[in-house]
């Protein structure tokens, strides 16, 4: 058995969370609330020391970079949500965030996820993989064509499209089984290795 108090805390919390498999109970509730609280607390501390302090407070107060005050003010407008009369001010911040995100992402998505993938699709059909890629992409795109009823040739191709989608889902399922088993391995290693020392390395 482990003598480290932190290992014991972690093990008991793991068991508390697993108790949900039986049914919802106070132990699970306590662990859940502790988890949420700890993750928010950790986020606040890390964000303060790694982002707010070196990128906002230090530049303004130590390096005299006063320009930083403007984005800070825009960010502070979010606080207006606590005052119903002025909560419209927070929309400025949201609009700012949305505008920047769209501006940055739109060209990048078109370039990285549309044009590059188009280029990767239009390959000379020299092997079965490249033939499957072209047929699969076309049929799945036709399935997601909303302006025509699924009848005739559209129906046939969209059904082939669904087949491709289902094969994709099968691959995902397989991969997910692998992922979930890995997570279980990790936890059992901790419980039976670090905690009760049944697993030896």
């Amino acid at each position: 058995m482990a003598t480290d108090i932190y290992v014991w805390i972690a093990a008991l919390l793991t068991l508390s969370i697993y108790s949900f498999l039986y049914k919802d109970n106070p132990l699970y509730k306590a662990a859940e609330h502790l988890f949420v609280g700890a993750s928010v607390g950790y986020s606040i501390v890390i964000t303060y020391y790694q982002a707010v302090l070196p990128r906002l407070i230090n530049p303004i107060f130590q390096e005299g970079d006063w320009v930083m005050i403007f984005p800070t003010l825009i960010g502070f407008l979010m606080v207006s949500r606590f005052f119903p009369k002025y909560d419209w001010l927070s929309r400025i911040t949201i609009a700012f965030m949305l505008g920047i995100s769209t501006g940055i992402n739109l060209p990048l998505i078109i370039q990285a996820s549309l044009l590059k993938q188009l280029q990767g699709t239009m390959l000379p059909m020299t092997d079965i993989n490249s033939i499957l890629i072209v047929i699969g992409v076309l049929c799945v795109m036709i399935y997601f064509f909303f302006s025509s009823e699924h009848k005739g040739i559209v129906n046939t191709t969209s059904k082939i499209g669904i087949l491709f989608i289902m094969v994709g889902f099968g691959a995902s399922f397989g991969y997910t089984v692998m992922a979930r088993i890995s997570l279980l391995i990790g936890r059992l290693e901790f419980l039976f290795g670090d905690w009760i020392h049944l697993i030896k390395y």
Partner: protein
Amino acid sequence: MKFWEMLSKLDRRIIFALVFLAVLLPLVFKMGLPIKGIQPPVKAIYDHIEKLPEGSTVLISITYSPSTMPELYPMTLAVIRHCFRQNIKVVCVSLGITGVGIGEMALQEAAKEYNKQEGVDYVNLGFQTGPVTLGMGQDIHKTYPTDYKGIKVAELPVMKNVKTYKDIGLIVDYTASGTGYIGTAVTMYNANLAVGVTAVGAADLYPYLQTKQIIGLMGGLRSAAEYELLIEKPDKGCIRMDSQSIAHLLILILIVVGNIAYFVTRRKRT
């Protein structure tokens, strides 16, 4: 027929117990099942690092939390070990808050083995808010003014010649899901990117592998074990593969038996 009916109504808790045993027993009684064949996307990452000249820099990006550590930590450690073995410098960043500690743990563990010095051979820059993957393309020093411990990045010897993605030989993004580097680092700055991802997210990334937007891919525990074999340092990834293989075998049997039971009992009903 009763047997099949019983199987089709099998209590799920029995399946839980079987999976539990299939995972636990190989961990307790080591089997050392062979791991055969290395996937080309995993080998591609290994080859890329092998070809990097001594003194180059690899950026390790941690975008996962402790919950996915069993899958991703072994591959993180394996690549860092490989870099240190090749005398390649490692710069670690975290795109998620919970990744900071994980990066630190992996760096410390590998640095101890290869006698590497913090600030000279490696650094953990930690977490930063905002469009970080974009910012690093312009200036890493501005994006991360200090490292994880608050030391000014400009004062660190390891960061002296590392200003943008151009100074980085390879980015390896470890993520529980998709990667944020394709749109920015790869598309805008032509950086070399490899991704280590949980098995759940691997299928999503194959299209990018096909278009060569990522140079290599490690998906799930199996890839971690393969990388450990490539660097000839078998560790947790290889050990865990015993449990993984036995559990997969059990699940395959359950799927086959379950489907037979379903069709037999359905035929009886009709």
